[in-house]
């Protein structure tokens, strides 16, 4: 069956609500409307206001309220309407949600999921396109998950809801309408397992979430230049799958990290560092990053320039020192390879 990511997410919520009486869905406009992206479409109608409901407009309130409900045994799945609108909840997430298990010596755990539609590529106006995964991944105690296809969207969300720890579930909104042939329910690899989306032997593109389809296109285009490029989809940023990434790069000897998020101090830099630390002797070239630029997310008409596209990825692959010509354009401090 051809299933969109949004449908897969909706089905995961539906099946989780059905499977566990303590699972509740709440947030802004998630009730009658079904969410601005319709991910919660029909849940209130099918399961009633008791299981899926609208809250006042206050993100710290939503997350803090969910935390309090966890204390009485509930498993809330809350929706932040957009990436940048989760920032009011940042204190609740970093100071409380992430730390509760640790600061109570394991006495209190928080089985909650915070769903965040994130990243750009949909022509959204400002504050609707942030790649905020780095903030959460930087925080100990949070799992950060981001699917890139419908099967993963379903499977990872079910796993997130069943997980005893808080999960930041980042949904690439540009992929909400992407389709995949899949039979639901389905069970994919668990958290902490990256997936090789395309095998290759010359170089590895490490990527996740919204950048996976772009990386796959770039890998496809690279065949015309004679490069056989592997694409690794992280699936979960935290926990991180060093094993799959390292195995791949040791095999190919070259690595480009692709992320829509700005490169400076971000997830892509973390990946590059981890690869360098673990694969130094296998590398034939420095690890490069192709990332969002060090600018605030631009107005929709400039989005294409900002986003790491196929050409920029191909340029980076071309610069992986395939011969002895020195690369004078190499500018490692700026993340973006262009």
């Amino acid at each position, binding site marked *: 069956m051809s299933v969109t990511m949004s449908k897969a997410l909706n089905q995961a919520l539906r099946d989780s609500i059905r499977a566990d009486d303590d699972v509740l869905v709440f947030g802004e406009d998630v009730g009658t409307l079904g969410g601005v992206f319709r991910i919660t479409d029909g849940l209130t109608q099918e399961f009633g206001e*008791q299981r899926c409901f609208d*809250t*006042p407009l*206050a993100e*710290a*309130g939503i*997350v*803090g*309220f*969910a*935390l*309090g*409900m*966890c*204390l*009485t*045994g*509930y498993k809330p799945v809350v929706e932040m309407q957009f990436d940048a609108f989760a920032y*009011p909840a940042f*204190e*609740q997430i970093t*100071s*409380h949600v992430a*730390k*509760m*298990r*640790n*600061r*109570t*010596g*394991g*006495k*209190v*755990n928080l089985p909650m999921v915070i769903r965040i539609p994130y990243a750009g590529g949909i022509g959204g106006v400002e504050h609707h396109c942030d790649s905020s995964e780095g903030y959460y991944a930087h925080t*100990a*105690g949070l*799992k950060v998950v981001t699917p890139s296809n419908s099967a993963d969207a379903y499977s990872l969300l079910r796993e997130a809801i069943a997980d*005893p*720890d808080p999960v930041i579930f980042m949904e690439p909104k540009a992929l909400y309408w992407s389709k995949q042939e899949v039979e639901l329910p389905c069970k994919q690899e668990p958290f*902490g397992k990256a997936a090789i989306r395309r095998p290759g032997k010359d170089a590895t593109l490490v990527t996740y979430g919204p950048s996976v389809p772009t990386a796959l296109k770039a890998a496809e285009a690279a065949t015309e230049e004679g490069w056989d490029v592997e694409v690794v989809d992280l699936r979960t940023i*935290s*926990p*991180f799958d*060093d*094993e799959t990434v390292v195995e791949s790069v040791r095999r190919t000897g070259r690595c480009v990290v692709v992320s829509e998020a700005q490169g400076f101090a971000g997830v892509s830099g973390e990946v590059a560092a981890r690869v360098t630390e673990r694969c130094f002797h296998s590398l034939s070239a420095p690890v490069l990053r192709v990332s969002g630029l060090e600018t605030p997310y631009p107005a929709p008409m400039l989005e294409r320039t900002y986003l790491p596209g196929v050409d920029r990825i191909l340029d980076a692959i071309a610069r992986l020192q395939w011969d002895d010509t020195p690369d004078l354009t190499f500018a490692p401090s700026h993340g973006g390879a262009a």
Partner: protein
Amino acid sequence: MTPTVSHTCARLSQLASPSDNVVMQTTAVTPDLAAHLLPSPNPVQLLDPTGTEVPQEGTRRPYLMPPPERLREVWRAMVIGRRFDIQATALTKQGRLAVYPSSRGQEACQVGATLSVTGNDWVFPTYRESMALVTRGIDPVEVLSLLRGDQHCGYDPKAHKTAPQCTPLSTQLIHAAGAAYGEKRRGTDNVALAFIGDGATSEGDFHEALNFAAVFEAPAIFFVQNNKYAISVPLSKQTKAPALAYKGIGYGVASEQVDGNDPAAVLAVMDVALEHCRAGHGPFLIEAHTYRLDAHTNADDASRYRSSDEVTAWLERDPIARVETWLKAHGALNDDLVSATHAEAETLASDLRDRMNVDPQADPMSLFDNVFEQRTPQLEDARRMVAAELAADAEMEDQS
């Protein structure tokens, strides 16, 4: 006694009725639909500072003098609580506590509010509530482990239905709203009692908590101890509200203000709030007017922002002396019980001193537990590194 939503509706339908004009003309008073949410114009007081009963006039709701046995129990817990507090401050001077925020002077709030709820209710304390937690029956050493520095929270929050002491101001109030709503959904009549200071009412989370609790009709009591300062900043720089209790009405939260140094009044107001919550009428906001006699913490120098005259004036409004006078006048307290209670307090203090007078053991290997239910591969790596470091240290020590 407690106005309900149906009251309001009844009044609304009166307004809409054809006879309404007549009512308006004859009474010349606009019915105040929100009046039942407002606090009393002056803080509720049942005992004045001399321990004399105050006739009840002009309060929004009737407040009843608690029975002597209950006041005696509160008096006892205040005597013990104050002794605990003084001991904790002393422990900072001996280097046994990293820091201690005292609540000396706020005993009527700490003890009165805490003893009003049951063990089935939730409590959401701040850093200031050590005395309240001891009153709740949590081991004083467990209460102080946050401030001693061996762990973030020494007690089991689930076993005691008491959240970890919260430092990010006001953030715990939203948790209280959520827990209260959870209890309501589970069909219990348990409430969540959340403590907060005057300054923290300026934080956004205070407002989000009141609003969420109101919208979900969650049985949460927000207990503001207005001790006049947020560290050095006086309340006048914090708000233009006539009193903090007036912050409830905008959210549809029933509110009251009380003399926070009058244990009898604190109990009476807590009783009304609890009845309101348990009857399903939603949250309740209490502002208790009190004063912290010590500095913000032992590390603070209060002379930089307040006069000793001001402190002296508040010493005369002592909550313990007030209720002690009343109990004695009513034959509910004799000198034997007074000395027995002080002896009990001394025992607690010396026991605390002894038990805090050991070097606590914090196991470095515990760092990696409880980040997640299961350690990630990265945590395992870091754990191996630290284990190797510790082993190397131990070997060095063996050799020397």
